């Protein structure tokens, strides 16, 4: 495997971890951890829950305490989804030794995944505290992290 292919491997692994954009197929020979799928599911789940929570704003027959209760339930589900997303990133990192990356490459990989992991952790904390208004901006930040990584790796992949 050439060095350029190795960079592509890292890029493809991270690309598959986010659902915000299309996912190119990983090069043959990439160890299948199964974790990116979980990561993708968690990310999609977070978006779905956020949309459902926003839709509550348009319910005019439910009383406000009922809507607040629904929001707390959704916030708890989002906290769970964020926790799963964080676990998925940990699992991806645990596969690093199998990828045979050198120290610098691992550092890069860890930093990329770590940033997303920190954001997932922060989202989890906000959701557990029922800070509804903070959740959507944090989701946007996570999407921005995904998008910037995708853009970066695609540039290098060319």
């Amino acid at each position, binding site marked *: 495997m050439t060095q350029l292919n190795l960079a592509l491997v890292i890029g493809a692994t991270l690309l598959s971890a986010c659902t915000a954009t299309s996912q190119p197929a990983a090069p043959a020979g990439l160890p299948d951890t199964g974790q990116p799928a979980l990561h993708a599911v968690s990310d999609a789940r977070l978006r779905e829950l956020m949309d459902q929570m926003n839709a509550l704003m348009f319910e*005019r027959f439910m009383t406000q305490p009922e809507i607040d209760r629904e929001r707390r339930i959704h916030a708890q589900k989002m906290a769970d989804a964020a926790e799963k997303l964080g676990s998925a990133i940990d699992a991806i990192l645990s596969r690093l030794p199998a990828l045979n990356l050198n120290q610098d490459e691992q550092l890069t990989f860890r930093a990329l995944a770590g940033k997303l992991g920190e954001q997932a952790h922060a989202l989890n904390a906000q959701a557990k505290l029922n800070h509804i208004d903070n959740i959507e901006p944090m989701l946007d930040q996570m999407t921005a992290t995904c998008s910037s990584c995708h853009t970066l790796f695609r540039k290098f992949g060319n």
Partner: protein
Amino acid sequence: MNVKKIALILLPALIATPFSISAEEDLRTLIKAMSTRMTELGKQVEQSNKHVAELEAKLAKLEREKAQTSAAAPSGQPAPVQTATIATGSVVAPAAEAQTKTAPAVTVGDAKGTFKIPGSDTSLGFGGYVKLDANYSSIGMGGDKLGDQHLVVAQIPVGANRLGEHSKATFHAKESRFWLKSFTPSGWGDINTFLELDLLGAAEISNYTPRLRHAYGSIGNFLAGQTWTTFLNVAAIGDTLDSAGSVGALVYLRQPQVRWTQPFNLAGTPMEFQAALETPKSRLWADPLSGETARDAYGFNNPNDERYPDFIARLNYNPEWGSLSLAGMGRQIRYTRQASVLQQEAWGGAVSLAGKINTVGMDNLRFMLNYGNAIGRYATFNTFGDAVLDANGQLQLVKVYGGTLAYQHWWDKSWRSTLAYGFVSSDQPVFVGGETTRRAQSVHANLLWSPLSQATIGLEYIYALRERTDNQSGDLHRVQFSTRFNF
């Protein structure tokens, strides 16, 4: 370019917000600039740490002096407080300064849109919306009727009553609402209170009498006050602009009650069991030959002689794909006539299966199926009685059954539509005649636009068909334009 270079270029990219790299040279320049900036920041941190250390030393010294002064003050007298001079040279009074230091700040509450009452754990919030409804109907309801403002199928003119009634335009803002809520955590469970008013207190179009919609409190699993009947699954109500909604849905009935809600899990799925005692009210249609003449605006008699509350139990099933509920109700319908020995009573019941099923994306299907022989007051706005009195004053319960199906489609996050169909039918005894409704159907179709979560503008088409016991029928076509602005 080797991998090491790639890694070195990527690392700073992680810290930065999303950006696009067009050339390696640009990245090198960026790294160089960042490196210089890091060095500058390091120097600033050193200076800041030094400054903080100085401030901490000063603070410690002041606290020591304050402690010594307090110890020297005579017992029972307050320690002298030094006035503070601010930069402008003005002087802050000691009392005002103390107040500024001790006054608790207003903070964000524990529920969305609330603030905490200073010095307490209670989160308080208020809000509501202003809604305009502009209706254009194919036929007027005759006179100043509520049916011109929202769908009241029992008021659709039939037969000769249609003569003289033609298309009619109606504008009103009576559905506008104001609410107040509080949330307080406690060792007994969360304490919630909720109060909501609208302006639909009178039927006349120009009469904006406030009406109490909700007034209830709850602690933990216990609720008391006026709110939606436990028999109604509110999540199953279709998203129509018309506030009365589909004729097949249970009437959106709010009434005083006490309710216990017991949550539990079945195979990992959250469920709830609810039991409630709700205010009783018998509504009868009386044969004119029975001697009973008292009738309300909808032709019913309300004897107001109930002995037992309405007993309601409901089971809620809340899987990931939506919610389902099965409700049962037992009621005593009772009639007595003043200044006579006539007394009639009968026990009846009803069941309701309702739910909301998430389908594709944000789309969902909502439905209700209702059946019973004591459901008249709960079904379709002021259309059916719970029982009838024959010419001899004998009471007979009336079976009513109906259902509604509403599909909500989200075109995108701002645009959505609902298509709802409903039907309701009653088994009226043969002697019941005149203006009484036997069955009805309705269709609602709308397109709603919410460019912001606080604003909704929409257009809805409504069709309703009413059939009376004398087999005559009348229909209604209506276009409703509505705007709703939340605050």
